[in-house]
């Protein structure tokens, strides 16, 4: 037992950044992409790793009227296919697009595993649920790069994640290439760019400015 010396060192883990590229592909062509990814990524011999997550986004707002526009979002995830797994809070910072020379979007990223009463706890802290969805798809990794090919489902009746209650959004799959790494590792962006070139022309992975979508 290390004793008290261990605790403070674990409290101050270097800030992590997420490097992200996104794109989409029509459902009909997903198989071709999956086969290519299987060839490019690690663990080509094993079967696809799937995931099925319920994500609820919680918002904390300032109640003073002058600062209504200020808020913080916590994304709470829970694996529907592994009910015993811990829940998971993810905080994402403001996205930095950078200039043309920067290959990916970069944002602060904090992942915290927690006990499963997190929804009630956040509500009690003053958070309100903003929106929720189910993400179902397949997960690949190559080195520390992570590739997700997934689909977003809307909950028809709020609160129930029963498959009958899910409605798919759109006719395409989302494709995400991301790496979570400590601050200041710009090299990883280049690696991601090279990797994304190999998926063309099936899917064009780009850095999207989410603020422009709103």
């Amino acid at each position: 037992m290390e004793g008290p010396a261990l605790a403070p060192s674990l409290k101050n883990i270097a800030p992590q950044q997420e490097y992200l590229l996104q794109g989409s592909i029509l459902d009909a062509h997903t198989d071709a992409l999956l086969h290519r990814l299987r060839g490019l990524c690690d663990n080509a011999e094993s079967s696809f790793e799937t995931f099925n997550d319920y994500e609820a986004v919680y918002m904390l707002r300032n109640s003073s009227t002058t600062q209504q526009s200020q808020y913080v979002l916590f994304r709470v995830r829970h694996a529907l296919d592994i009910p015993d797994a811990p829940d998971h809070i993810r905080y994402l910072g403001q996205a930095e697009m950078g200039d043309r020379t920067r290959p990916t979007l970069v944002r602060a990223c904090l992942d915290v595993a927690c006990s499963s009463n997190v929804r009630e706890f956040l509500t009690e802290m003053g958070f309100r649920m903003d929106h929720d969805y189910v993400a179902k798809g397949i997960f690949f990794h190559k080195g520390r790069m992570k590739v997700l090919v997934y689909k977003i489902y809307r909950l028809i009746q709020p609160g129930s994640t029963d498959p009958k209650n899910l409605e798919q959004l759109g006719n395409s799959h989302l494709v995400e290439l991301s790496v979570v790494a400590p601050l200041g590792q710009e090299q990883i962006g280049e690696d991601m760019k090279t990797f994304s070139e190999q998926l063309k022309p099936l899917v064009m992975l780009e850095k999207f400015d989410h603020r422009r979508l709103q």
Partner: protein
Amino acid sequence: MGVSCVYSYPVPEGRSGAQVVDLLQKQVEMLGGIKAGTFLVDCETYQSVMLNTPKTLHILHNSEHPASCFAILDSGATLVADTLFNGLMSNLKNYYQARKGAKIESKGQRFQLSDFILKVGSVSLAGSMKGILVEVEYCPSAIAADCWNLMKELLQSLIGGVAESPPRSLKPKMEEVYTPATTMLQYLNHFNNFRTAAAMSQPAR
């Protein structure tokens, strides 16, 4: 990991806290306790700002669970998370602010006595000693009701009548499977008492 009970041990007048801690430690060693490292439980308190209903959030750490962080609201709702939860709190600094000078901790020697772990901690608030907390853990059991009598016997030989009945936050959970969150609730209760006592003893300005 087993069932833990935490008691506050009064410091008699005319004695310093350090003397009493020393005495307790000697007593544990007389019982056959063997020194097994040190321990630390700390608590930081955050106050909500700009929220309609004011809320208090306590963030506790325990060296016994070095990768975890315990967040407890006034209502007793407890969230167990990775220590990275501290990082989340710093992103909430516009909503929850750390109360100044409210950091309180209990630290001291940890002893092993066959199936028991005993901890004698001195409590300090903003750098000054406020009291003594004694924790006894009985490792082989997970249900407090099953081992309370056994623990009581050991506790009474050490701290006497203070341990007449189970701690307040443990009482409603005697029949349930014990979790480390209950230990933290016990510590928080004691910490809050020490803080109230410290606020009372301060001269009014």
